[in-house]
């Protein structure tokens, strides 16, 4: 997958967790908790969805590495 495809897939899963988010308005550096207001349950649901989609089991200690679309794209590209 290209980084663009990974970013799109990440946003797709993000929007499933928080359907009110318009993916076109999310910038690369938006923080999923501080800017997009996901709570801990939302983050866990997102991590679960990414595990299902990419087969990547993100440990709790690395949640910070998927905190923005830019970080997540880099992290998932490396892990995929």
């Amino acid at each position, binding site marked *: 997958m290209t980084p663009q495809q990974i970013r799109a897939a990440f946003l797709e899963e993000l*929007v*499933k*967790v*928080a*359907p*009110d988010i318009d993916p076109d308005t999310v910038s690369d550096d938006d923080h999923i*908790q*501080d800017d997009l*207001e996901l*709570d*801990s*349950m939302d983050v*866990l*649901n997102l*991590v*679960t*969805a*990414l*595990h*299902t989609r990419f087969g990547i*089991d*993100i*440990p*709790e200690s690395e949640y910070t590495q998927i905190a923005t679309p830019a970080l997540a794209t880099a992290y998932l590209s490396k892990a995929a």
Partner: protein
Amino acid sequence: MEAGTLVEWLIEPGDTVKRGDVIAVVETQKGAIEIEIFQTGTVHHLEAELGQKLPVGAPLAMILDEGEKAPAAPKPAPVVVEPKAAPAPPSEEAAAPPPVPPAAPPRPATPALPSGGLAASPAARHRAAEHGIDLTTVKGSGPGGVIQLGDVERIVGTTSEVAAAKPSSPMAEMRKAIAAAMSRANRDIPHLYVSQTIDLKPATEWLEKANRDREPANRLLIGALFVRAGAFAAAKVPVVNGQYHDDGFQPSKTVNAGMAVALRGGGLVAPAIMDTETLTLDETMAAMRDLVTRARAGRLRGSEMSMGTITISALGETGAEAMTGVIFPPQVALVGIGAPKRRPWVVGDAVVPRQTVTVTLSLDHRVGDGRQAARFLTEFENLMQTPEAL
């Protein structure tokens, strides 16, 4: 909730129903609510009509017991808009504790997100299916973008009675519902508050270890430990657990822990996890995930909205350090949990940095006193020091 609009029947005359079945859907200020039945029998006839606005306690249908013959003149049946405010079914004694929750439906270990990521109320789904409307083309106006009946109605192009009954936006209606409940609480309930800051180290360390070997789908959140500690402490201090009605306080034998769920885009609901004290930690976590998912998709049950016996409200991982909450009537206590903070903490003769959390209990002073409230917090603190026992 004072009234609801009947938007969907899931039964028809002749059907057999059993306690706990979902038989209808009403749209309320707090979104669509699934109405369960509290007896077993056969549906004789439906009394309420689709689109009808019904006050709490209005009869919906007549259910006959096994072998019972229909009376000549219909009498009000105990199937009502909301179980809480309804008279108890005739088989129960007047002095019985708060309504016994229906048998809890099996909870999926990992609740599925709304299909295709779409959040829509049952009524909206039903109406969309009727008219062959693809829900992905509908823009939701409910909390968090949930598609509600009115959104589908607008596309159908009909101004049905149901749509016409909606005076303003769903969000405005939810604010009104919150305003009504909280005003009532501040008017009727003399609140007292006690707070305690507790050490979170045992809980966070235990959780970190427990989650290390778990797949994301099975991981636990500290919120689940808070709910368990709250439920066990409530079971030990009965004065915080129950409901206050016209005839005074009725303690509950079970703990139905309400969980405040903030809806994205604003609004708040506090559905209850039935019989929390009988669940395991994993079951509690699964129930919480399920409730949050359904709260956001507008698929909560009437019993979950009305049978809570105590509410636990946590601010989350970041933000303010303490919350002094307003009790959710007819309950008598609310546990407000601030965001965990790293603070200097005295251990023996040394000051060490520790993750701490401040827990505040709001208690109805008509029911209990500061001493009992403090005892609840002591129990809560002790339980959080041995998370493996939760």
